[in-house]
């Protein structure tokens, strides 16, 4: 495992580490430089001046959930398509036919979701 780590991996890890350090660093700098005078009104939830009515975490409708399900299906499909596309020019016509069948099945799924009204924003 360890011997497969290359310079690329180290750089990519460094991006996460340095990014994760930079954010608290700027926020600390801001905390040191900025004044802090909180008061009752200032810490209120901002709703354009009126008093907030009801809890902020309201229930969201289930429509989002259907989109998320569809998204998972199609995102996985896309991930499957990428290796195929990379190898595409090195392989024969058979691979193309196979992939047309694969896309066809997914297109049928999309058409079904469409017909059932899952793609309609309500």
């Amino acid at each position, binding site marked *: 495992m360890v011997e497969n780590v290359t*310079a*690329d991996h*180290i*750089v*990519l890890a*460094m*991006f*996460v580490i*340095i*990014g*994760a350090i*930079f*954010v*608290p660093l*700027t*926020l600390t*700098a*801001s905390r040191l*430089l*900025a004044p*802090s*005078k*909180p008061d009752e009104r*200032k*810490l*209120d*939830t*901002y*709703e*354009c001046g009126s008093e*907030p009515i009801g809890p*902020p*975490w*309201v229930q*969201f409708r289930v429509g*989002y959930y259907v*989109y998320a399900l569809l*998204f998972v299906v*199609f*995102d996985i499909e*896309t991930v499957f*398509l*990428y290796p195929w*596309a*990379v190898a*595409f*020019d*090195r392989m024969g*016509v058979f691979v*193309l036919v196979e*992939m*047309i069948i694969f*896309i066809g099945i*997914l*297109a049928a799924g*999309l058409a079904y979701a*469409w017909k059932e009204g899952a*793609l*309609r*924003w309500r």
Partner: protein
Amino acid sequence: MSVFAISALKVAAALGLMLANGVIMIYMLRKVLGHLHIRLGPMHVGWKGTLQTVMDVLKLLTKEDITPRAVDRWLFRLAPAVVFVPSLMAYAALPFSDTWRVTDLDTGLLYTFTALSLVPIGILMAGWASANKWSLLGGMRAAAQQIAYEVPLLLSVLPIVMLVGSTNLGTIVEAQQGTLLGVVPRWFIMNPLFWPTFLIFVVAALVETNQTPFDLSEGESEIVAGFATEYSAMKFGLLFLSEFSNQFIVSALGVTLFFGGWTLPWLPHSWYAAVPILGPAIFITKTYLGIFIMMWIRGTFPRVRIDQVMQLGWQRLIPVSLVWIVFSGIVIKVWS
């Protein structure tokens, strides 16, 4: 020098570029929008207002950081980092020239898309943690938009991967060398097979970066500032820095995929080796031209509605890009 020190320097360079992009692009946005509205934009601080955004960054740094009472404190603090880090990571695979790049990833295209698709998690987090109805609406819209357009974005560039046979961004640029008939560049944008690809890419990229006409997650005339409503001072600054940086990233991706990256076809190949700065200069100029067009769109088109956005994504762009993958597969096979 150890590999760690070199890596740290590379990341620092990327971070520097990201910060510089933020400052330059905000100034540019104000100037471009100003002139589109037939006014001047910032004029007072520095020559023609050039120091305006530098001063604004300093101002943000010294502003009071308000954390409203109702927020979920830890998520509220974490969200700017979750937005910022992937945005910085996206610089790792960009090919500024054949030698100027942080890493030479074989999966560069997928890596960049991955980094970009992490950003909305942070936006959703910001929207939820703010305990504000505007923020919640903005965050939810961002999530819905993101998942609707990530699929067409990934699918749209698939024909290019099929033709080139690689997701290495450098290899994709190298596949666009030379000219047709001595004048027309052999960029992928000149290939009619990739015209629908380009259109889908542009629309999906605008949605992914929350650009007008698809800036529903922060639409200021509807939901104040969307997910950023409760953010102030440097937290707000970081959120917006990432947003501008993402705009740079998608523009750079567009340049790499369709406009020949760091190369101009009319220049002899030896020039790039002789003047190392030439490649990055061409790349960044092209990227900023792309950004200018995005700002032009921003100053021209009205915002669309959320149901229209979702409909366009799921019912138009995904079917069209699926059909186009099959069609270009057949064309590429028949051709070769």
